[in-house]
């Protein structure tokens, strides 16, 4: 013990000279000594409590005390202190006995030359002992700490023999499973479906000496299974043989759920994209590099996912040459001004077909308003475009068909219309002749003549009016919405069809709700609807005569309700819906288009048309016209 101060020696000696001799000998041996001299048991015990003592030198025989007792006291109080007997009368057998009890050494006063080496050895050995003890203490502490750490970390830790039998498992295992893992006991906690696979995998890794990893379900104390990740690393000897496995078991149940949910959500998204032909992509805001393309994006633009993410310019090559510039401008705007862009464009597929795409680019900004990414969505709208075109063509065809039907209907009415126009002409001629006669008389009746002339003008105007109305029905025009007074329109149609009705002894009557709000409608188309329904009514009574009643009213639901009823032959039995289908007709020369066109017109105005039979005979056709787009009267 190389204390910087002196070597502290507790000395049990009754002879001062001997004590002095010891000091001299030690000092001669390069020791600086501080001797604490004691003679009695009491003195010895009190000095022994001094922590600074490094060494005890004791005489064997003393007047009131003895060395053997001192040794025993020392061994019990300070077992680490080196204890050397220095005696003049120590027999060989006693010396051996003392060494057996625990003395460090003995030096005979007759051979004091051994003193310094003995002290030196004792001190060295004591020092070594202290060091060892300290090291052992440190090892124990570290082991304790490690054990503690292993027991408390939030994971199961295991060690196992190469055959999988457990050496140990930390208490987390017992806490979780409620059972011991000892031996092969851990296997009872494994899900029956997982055990074989798990063991095969482990045995395989053990045989190959590879790290082991598996996902397996363990049963919790309450009987529920949770997913765990089991990982292990083998410890090998110098020949590479596995001595032992060390590993951990981690609860991945929640992660598994999250992964499953994520996987499902990704599957849903991919499916949604596939079904709606919608691709999505992302481009880095700073570098302009593509960072993400969805599966559908690859499919839409004919790129192979194996070839990696296409660059913007590669993608642009797929775009129809005429649309490239437009798209580039839109994209530049988004990148430079950080605003969303929206564009419709065409792409050329490898099979030379053209597809229509609706693309939207949205900027994603960072905390400092810097452009992080541009997220793009591309929707294939080819089908929609085609449907729109088809609808447009269909509308055109419908208009043409309606026109043809109108013209053919007017053809049927030609005789009757001629009569209708002839009527005011006849009146005008009669008035003109009356006028002449009043003037030619011997006493000219000028007031009567003037009246006749005025009437003549009115008759001529009426003829012109009828011609104008009829002409509009012949015209082929695109649908045009205007403010229409339905009552006025009904009266006009009664006028035009008046003669046709007369011809078949059919009277026409109107019951109009006045005033009715005006509606926005296509005048010519509505005229056609009335003409169809009223002519049908007239023709249904051509052999019997009768009455056509046209009613208008404002319904409670805010729609105009118009009805055209007759007392004719009525509807074909059980076919009240079929009559509205194209080419359905009960007339020998009918085209079967009239009611189909009627329905198409009413529905295009947002209304509904239906037919009901009348009692005892006849039919009533009703239709609604919404006021939604109504203009004020």
């Amino acid at each position: 013990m190389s204390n910087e101060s002196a070597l502290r020696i507790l000395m049990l000696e009754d002879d001062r000279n001997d004590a002095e001799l010891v000091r001299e000998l030690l000092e001669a041996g390069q020791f600086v000594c501080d001797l604490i001299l004691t003679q009695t048991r009491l003195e010895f015990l009190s000095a022994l409590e001094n922590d600074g003592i490094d060494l005890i030198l004791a005489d064997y025989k003393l007047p009131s005390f003895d060395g053997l007792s001192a040794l025993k006291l020392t061994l019990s109080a300070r077992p680490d202190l080196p204890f050397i007997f220095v005696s003049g009368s120590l027999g060989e057998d006693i010396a051996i006995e003392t060494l057996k009890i625990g003395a460090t050494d003995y030096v005979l006063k007759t051979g004091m030359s051994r003193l310094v080496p003995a002290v030196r050895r004792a001190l060295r050995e004591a020092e070594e002992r202290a060091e060892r003890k300290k090291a052992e203490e440190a090892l124990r502490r570290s082991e304790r700490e490690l054990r503690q750490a292993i027991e408390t970390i939030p994971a199961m830790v295991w060690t196992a023999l190469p055959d999988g039998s457990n050496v140990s498992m930390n208490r987390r295992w017992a806490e979780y499973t409620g059972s011991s893992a000892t031996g092969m006991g851990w296997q009872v906690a494994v899900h029956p479906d997982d055990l074989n696979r798990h063991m095969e995998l482990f045995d395989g890794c053990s045989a190959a000496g590879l790290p082991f990893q598996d996902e397996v379900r363990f049963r919790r104390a309450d009987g529920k299974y949770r997913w765990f990740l089991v990982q292990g690393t083998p410890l090998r000897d110098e020949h590479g043989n596995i001595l032992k496995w060390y590993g951990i078991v981690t609860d991945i149940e929640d992660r598994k759920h999250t992964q499953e949910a994520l996987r499902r959500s990704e599957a849903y998204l991919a499916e949604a994209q596939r079904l709606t032909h919608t691709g999505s992509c992302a481009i880095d805001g700073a570098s302009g590099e593509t960072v993400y393309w969805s599966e559908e994006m690859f499919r839409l633009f004919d790129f192979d996912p194996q070839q990696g993410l296409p660059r913007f310019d590669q993608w642009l090559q797929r775009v129809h040459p005429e649309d490239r510039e437009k798209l580039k401008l839109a994209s530049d705007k988004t990148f430079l001004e950080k605003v969303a862009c929206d564009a419709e464009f065409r792409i050329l597929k490898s099979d030379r077909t053209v597809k229509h795409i609706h693309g939207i680019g949205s900027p994603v900004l960072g905390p400092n308003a810097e452009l992080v990414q541009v997220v793009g969505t591309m929707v294939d709208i080819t089908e929609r475009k085609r449907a729109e075109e088809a609808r447009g063509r269909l509308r055109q065809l419908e208009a043409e068909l309606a026109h043809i039907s109108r013209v053919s209907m007017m053809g049927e009415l030609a005789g009757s219309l001629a009569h209708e126009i002839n009527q005011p002409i006849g009146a005008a001629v009669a008035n003109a002749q009356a006028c002449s006669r009043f003037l030619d008389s011997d006493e000219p009746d000028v007031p009567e003549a003037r009246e006749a002339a005025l009437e003549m003008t009115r008759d001529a105007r009426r003829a012109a009016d009828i011609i104008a109305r009829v002409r509009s029905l012949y015209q082929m025009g695109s649908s045009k919405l205007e403010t229409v007074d339905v009552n006025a329109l009904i009266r006009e149609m009664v006028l035009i069809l008046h003669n046709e009705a007369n011809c078949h002894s059919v009277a026409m009557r109107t019951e109009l709700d006045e005033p009715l709000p005006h509606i926005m409608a296509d005048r010519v188309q509505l005229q056609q609807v009335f003409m169809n329904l009223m002519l049908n009514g007239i023709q249904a009574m051509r052999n019997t005569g009768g009455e056509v009643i046209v009613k208008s009213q404002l319904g409670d639901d805010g729609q105009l309700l118009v009805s055209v009823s007759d007392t004719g032959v009525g509807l074909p039995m059980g076919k009240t819906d079929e009559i509205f289908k194209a080419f359905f007709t009960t007339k020998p020369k009918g085209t079967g288009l009239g009611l189909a066109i009627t329905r198409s017109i009413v529905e295009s105005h947002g209304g509904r048309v239906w037919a009901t039979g009348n009692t005892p005979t006849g039919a009533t056709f009703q239709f609604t016209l919404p006021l939604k787009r109504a203009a004020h009267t």
Partner: protein
Amino acid sequence: MNADDNVTVFVIDDDARMRAATERLLKSVGLHVESFAAPKDFLTRKLPDAPSCLVLDVRLPGMCGLDVQRKLSDAGVQIPVIFITGHGDIPMTVKAMKSGAVEFLTKPFRDQDLVDAIQKALQEQRETWQHQHEIQELKERYQTLTGREREVMLLLVSGLLTKQIASRLGTSEITAQVHRGQVMHKMHAQSPAELGRMAEKLKLPAVN
């Protein structure tokens, strides 16, 4: 046209303007006109005890002009009918003329054609009236004859002499002579030939 003739021209036309114009035209030639929009209004009216005619539009609401004509004849009303039509319809014209129409005019008609047609109709009407009047008088005279006198008249118009009549009836020639004188007197006949024409008008059966 005689203004003092007290004739009436009836007009049926559902077209108000046409009706007014026709009425005005007939008025300008001094005719008295009564017009109707619908046939039923006319059919319920009692006809005047004076010559009249009907100007009828072929096409009418609820009832066709030809129907009106038929209804009139069914009801025993004898009135000449002039049809007016918007446009010439030959089958209809034939039908109308066959059922006794006076004239069939197409609108616009010449005023003179209408006036002439009306004149012709009224003339026919007058003649009919005269004929009917004559028959009526003969019938009244015939009513005054006794049974024996009616027998004598029948034999007379069959061309038998007085002696032959007496023999047929089993009477004396004197008695037959007296009956013959009574018949000639009561019937206002100047000669057996005239009596024969009267019998014809009365549609008396001939005797062998």
